[in-house]
C-alpha cells in the first residue's frame, strides 16, 4: 500500500538544538520499522516529522514516493497511536473512533459499519457506549488502536504505545499489534525505548543514538552483529559484556596484561553476549577461546536460566547459565567464550571484523 522514505532528514530547533542530524530510512511496503534508542535520541521527533506534526528542517520525507514535507498531517493519510492514547475524554468510544471518518466526510452508514467491524477485531464491541475514563488502561490502548485502524490509513505511526501498560499486558498487546499489522498489511513506524519490544516487533530495526542512526537491519542481524559498542550494549538483556583492551607488546591485551593472540590489531574493546560464554571450574583450556578467571559476585536465578555476575578482567561481566547455577557467591571460576562468538570494537566504538 505505501512506502515511507526518509532522506537525510534533519531537525534543528529555533534554539539551535539539533534533535535529528540527518537520518535516511527506507521502509518497504507492509513492513514494520521500529525506531529504538534511549530517551532524547530523536526517535520521537523523527516520528512526529513523518506524521507532519513537526516541521522538517532539511531533507525529505516521502510517503508512497511522494514528498510530503509541506503537507499537513490530515493529507498525509497517516494514523497515529499516542503514548497516552490521547482519546477525546468527552466522546464515547464509538465517537472517538468515528471522529476522523466524520471529519473526512465519510457517509454515515459506512462509518457505522467500519467502526463496528474494527470494534469486533479489537473486541471492543461491548464498550462502544462507554467513555474513555470508564475504561482500563488496556482497553483505552485498544480504542487508540481502533481509532487508527478504522481510518484505514496508508501508514501507522506508533509513539511508545505500550509504555503505560503493565508488563503482562504489554507482552499481550505486543503480539496483538504484530498480528494486526501483519494481517492488515499497513506500513508502520513504531517508536519505543524498550529493546525487547523492538526486537520482537520489527521487520526493520533502526537503533538511534544522539540524533543519528547507529545501525539499521533485521533485528537478529543487529543482535548478532552490532555495529558499535552503543548498539551492543543497548540491544539484548542483559546487555553484551564489554571489556576494555590495552595495547600490549604483543597485541591487544586484557586489563590483567594477558595478550589475546587472535584479537584484531586495532581492537580496543572486546564484547561477548552473556549466553555466548560458559563457566568451568576445571583447568582445561580449549584453544581459540577467550578464557577469563572470574570471581562470582552475585547469582540471579530466573528459573529457566541463571545469571552470574562476576568480576573478571578488571570489569563486571554477566554470564548466563541454563537452569540452576552450580556456582555460588565467592566461587572462583573461569569464563570461556569461543573466538567466533567474540565481538571487537575499535577506538571509535565501531565494529572490527
Amino acid at each position: 500500500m505505501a512506502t515511507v522514505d526518509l532522506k537525510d532528514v534533519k531537525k534543528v530547533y529555533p534554539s539551535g538544538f539539533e534533535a535529528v542530524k540527518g537520518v535516511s530510512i527506507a521502509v518497504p511496503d507492509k513492513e514494520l520499522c521500529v525506531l529504538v534508542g534511549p530517551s532524547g535520541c530523536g526517535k520521537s521527533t523523527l516520528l512526529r516529522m513523518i506524521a507532519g506534526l513537526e516541521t522538517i528542517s532539511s531533507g525529505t520525507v516521502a510517503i508512497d514516493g511522494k514528498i510530503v514535507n509541506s503537507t499537513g498531517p490530515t493529507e498525509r493519510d497517516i494514523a497515529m497511536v499516542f503514548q497516552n492514547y490521547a482519546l477525546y475524554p468527552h466522546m464515547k468510544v464509538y465517537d472517538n473512533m468515528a471522529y476522523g471518518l466524520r471529519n473526512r466526510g465519510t457517509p454515515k452508514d459506512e462509518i457505522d459499519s467500519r467502526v463496528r467491524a474494527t470494534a469486533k477485531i479489537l473486541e471492543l464491541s461491548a464498550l462502544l457506549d462507554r467513555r474513555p475514563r470508564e475504561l482500563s488502561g488496556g482497553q483505552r490502548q485498544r480504542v487508540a488502536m481502533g481509532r487508527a485502524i478504522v481510518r484505514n490509513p496508508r501508514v501507522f505511526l506508533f509513539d511508545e504505545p505500550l509504555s503505560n501498560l503493565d508488563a503482562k499486558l504489554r507482552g499481550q498487546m505486543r503480539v496483538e499489534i504484530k498480528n494486526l499489522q501483519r494481517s492488515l498489511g499497513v506500513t508502520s513506524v513504531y517508536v519505543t525505548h524498550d529493546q525487547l519490544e523492538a526486537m520482537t516487533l520489527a521487520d526493520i530495526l533502526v537503533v538511534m543514538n544522539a540524533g543519528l542512526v547507529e545501525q539499521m537491519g533485521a533485528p537478529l542481524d543487529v543482535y548478532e552483529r552490532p555495529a558499535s559498542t552503543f548498539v551492543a550494549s543497548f540491544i539484548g538483556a542483559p546487555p553484551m559484556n564489554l571489556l576494555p583492551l590495552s595495547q600490549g607488546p604483543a597485541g591487544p591485551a586484557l586489563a590483567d596484561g594477558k595478550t589475546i593472540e587472535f584479537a584484531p590489531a586495532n581492537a580496543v574493546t572486546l564484547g561477548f553476549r552473556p549466553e555466548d560464554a560458559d563457566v568451568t571450574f576445571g583447568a582445561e583450556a580449549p584453544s581459540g577461546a577467550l578464557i577469563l578467571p572470574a570471581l562470582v559476585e552475585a547469582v540471579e536465578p530466573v528459573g529457566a536460566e541463571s545469571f552470574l555476575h562476576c568480576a573478571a578482567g578488571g570489569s563486571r561481566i554477566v554470564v548466563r547459565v541454563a537452569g540452576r547455577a552450580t556456582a555460588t557467591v565467592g566461587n572462583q571460576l573461569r569464563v570461556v567464550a569461543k573466538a567466533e562468538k567474540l565481538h571487537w570494537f575499535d577506538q571509535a566504538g565501531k565494529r572490527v571484523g
Partner: protein
Amino acid sequence: MIGQSPLRTVIAHAMLILGILIVAFPIYYTFVASTQTLQTILRPPLPLLPGDQFWNNYSEALFGGVGRIGGVSVGRLLLNTTIMALGIAVGKIFISILSAYAIVFFRFPLRMTFFWLIFITLMLPVEVRILPTYKVMVDLGMIDTYAGLIIPLIASATATLLFRQFFMTIPGELVEAARVDGAGPWRFFFDILLPLSRTNIAALFVILFIYGWTQYLWPLLVTNSSNMNTIVIALRKMVSFADADTQWHLVMVTAMLAIVPPILVVVLMQRWFVRGLVDSEK
C-alpha cells in the same frame, strides 16, 4: 468525617444554623415587609409574620408601574436587567474563550505582547476608565441602548486568564490526535475544546451573570430614560429623600423580585455544572 464526636456535630450544626440565620433573616424580613401596607411599615415595630398585602403589592409593582420611577413596571426593569446581565455574561465568555484559544493554541507574532496587554487591563477596572468610556458611548449614540449597557463591560481579562489556564492543561497529544484525525482549528474548537470547557463555562456564567446583574455605576451613567433603567438603579431611585414619600412596600417587593433571577441562575446552573464536573474527564 472520621472520628466525629456527637458534640462536634452539634457545634458544627449550631454554627451552620447561626450562619444561615444571619444570612437569611434580612431576606425574610424584606419579604415580610413586602407583604405589608405602607402604613404598617412606617409604624414600627414591623411584625415578624407576613401580612395580607402580598397580591396587592406584587401585582401593583409588576404591572401597575411605580410613580417614582417614571411609571415603569418592575417587569420592564427585570427584562432590562436580564438582557444586560445575559449580554455581559455571554459576551464575556464568548470573547474570552476566543482570545484564550488564540493565545494558547496559535503561534503568531506578538503573541505574548497581546497576552500581557490583556493581563494588564486587569488593573484597569470600569471606574478608572469611566469618563473616556462615557464619552465614546455618547459619541456613538449608545446612551439609553442595550448595546451601551453591555459592550463597555464585555471584555474580561479574568475570564481570559481562566480559560487560558484551563486550555494549557489540555495535553498536546490531544491536539495532535485531532490534527491527525483531520480536525481543523474550528472543528477542534467546537468538537473538542468547547465540550471540554463546559464546566468552566457554566461556572463562569454564574459568576458573570451575577456580576452583570449587580452593576450599578455604569448603568447609572449610561441610562437616562426610565425605560432603560436596570432594577438596581430603579431601586435606588425609588428610595426618596423624604421618608414619607417612599413607597416602602413597593421598594421591598422590588428588592425581593430583584434577587429572584440570580437565585434561579445559581440553583439551575449549579446542577448543570456539578453534572459537568462528574461527566468530564478523570
